[in-house]
């Protein structure tokens, strides 16, 4: 900073530490809760320090030995979550890279129409059109299937929009140089465009993965078969008992397990993620 004001520096650090503390508080309590037997959660009391049941709780929840209201173990739901998240991520990247490429680098009849059909979906989340989408998926016989979990969530233009922005900043002379070097549209796509956009692709990968992993309402609605349950939505089942009967230790283990993969991705790829988020949406 320009001038040295010790008390201001102190206020800054203090505020940030307080902020971090408040933000971390619920996770701390969840961690503590996950280390106690369910009998520790009675009326008027909740343990505030770690217990000795950690290993036991985490193991039994992970392997599905603890009663959870779902017939498949947590590791299996985790697998489902991974399949759904990766399916959504890869699918979105695939269709949006191709369509953004076509829209930016080609001129063809009905280009404008294609553009609008795609971009009309830009801000309309599945939650808004949930009932008719459900009916369409039911008509297509895709309830309780991975394609039913994945495909409808791919239908959004955010990634296409961002790739379009990214491609439009490519200098035109680069394309001309490639044409002179004998690269047709397909070579250009693989040799020049993809490698040049790899930071954006990676950043979007992170964002899309988190989006996919965290889906809640859509899986809740279209899966009735436990074999297709995802981790995040299974929480609903675990809480769907009388309030006094909730096994908080197991709920918290599940919650933490459902948080770990996306949080790890964000922290592990923080630089990329921050750049992708801030650059992309600005």
């Amino acid at each position, binding site marked *: 900073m320009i001038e040295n004001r010790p008390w201001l520096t102190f206020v800054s650090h203090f505020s940030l530490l307080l902020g971090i503390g408040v933000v971390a508080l619920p996770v701390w309590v969840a961690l503590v809760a996950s280390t106690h037997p369910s009998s520790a959660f009675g009326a008027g009391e909740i343990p505030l320090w770690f217990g000795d049941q950690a290993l036991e709780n985490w193991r039994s929840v992970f392997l599905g030995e603890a009663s959870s209201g779902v017939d498949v173990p947590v590791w299996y739901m985790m697998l489902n979550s991974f399949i759904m998240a990766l399916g959504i991520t890869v699918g979105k990247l695939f269709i949006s890279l191709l369509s953004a490429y076509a829209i930016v680098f080609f001129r063809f009849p009905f280009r404008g129409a294609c553009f609008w059909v795609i971009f009309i979906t830009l801000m309309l*989340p599945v939650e*808004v059109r949930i009932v008719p989408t459900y009916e369409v998926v039911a008509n297509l016989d895709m309830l309780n299937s991975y394609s039913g979990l994945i495909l*409808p969530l791919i*239908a959004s233009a955010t990634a296409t929009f961002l790739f379009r922005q990214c491609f439009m900043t490519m200098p035109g002379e680069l394309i001309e140089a490639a044409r002179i070097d004998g690269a*047709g549209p397909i070579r250009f796509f693989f040799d020049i465009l993809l490698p040049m956009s790899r930071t954006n692709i990676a950043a979007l990968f992170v964002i899309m993965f988190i989006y996919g992993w965290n889906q809640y309402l859509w899986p809740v609605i279209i899966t009735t078969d436990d074999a297709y349950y995802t981790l995040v939505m299974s929480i609903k089942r675990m809480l769907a008992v009388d309030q006094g009967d909730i096994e908080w230790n197991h709920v918290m283990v599940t919650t933490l397990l459902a948080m770990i993969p996306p949080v790890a991705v*964000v922290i592990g790829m923080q630089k990329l993620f921050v750049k992708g988020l801030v650059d992309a949406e600005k």
Partner: protein
Amino acid sequence: MNLWQGAVLMSVYFPHKKLPYLLVLPQLVITLIFFLWPAEQAFEQAFYQEDAFGLSREFVGFDNFVYLFNDPQYYKSIWVTLVFSFSVAFSGLAIALWLAVMADRVIRGKLTYQTLLVWPYAVAPALAGVLWWLLFDPSMGPIALWLQYFGVDWNHFLNGDQAMTLVVISATWKQISYNFLFFLAGLQAVPRSLIEAASIDGASPFKRFWTIVFPLLSPTTFFLLVINLVYAFFDTFGVIDATTQGGPGVSTATMVYKVFNDGFIGLDMGSSAAQSVVLMFLVGVMTVIQFRYIERKVEY
């Protein structure tokens, strides 16, 4: 990188006839099947009345809409949505701005602070709701017990305002990280020379912030306001469903929650479809605002 500088359409392109159609085809197909078809169904459905088993339906014109806009419950849900969304947006923006200003000031540990503040972005809304539920659980949540100790009779299962507070806190908690990142980026983009000039002019740090930094941040703030409202409108379904399920009564049933509830629980397809149509219209308006904003930014 300024993503808008290329907004003038590229003048260099490939002279191909069939390939571009092949390239847009996958996205077009997906959009048609999973977006336009459902949207069309919603429009159609909104003009029919279906019996509870979906066996027969009858054309009723604008009845569903008329009914909707005469339904006090619907106005209640609009009110709930507004209270919820603006509470989330304002508290999220205020806290994030404060933290970002502080983080922009510190010299050492900026990245560490950022890391420790961004991770809630990755937490699913439903899980955020469950985490805060535990803290506020009336019978054993530490915060609830603490509040009760001070004489606040906390029970969000019975008290609608308290239920609203809980979902607002959960939804805000998750959104702070997002706002924080944008504010921090915005602050770092404020030219150092401007701040230096102001401090040479004798402006105190507080004054500098309100007269120079904050006005320069206003595009970011406006952008975030729209994004936060959209988030609170549509992406917080999980928070509500996992904690209060719209209750007690309908005190936390937002418009999106009501679409789901009337459609899947109440099985009133016509009304649910009419509500979807209204929401789609709302999103359309928000998208236009967003684009306007983006266009204005292009001129900068």
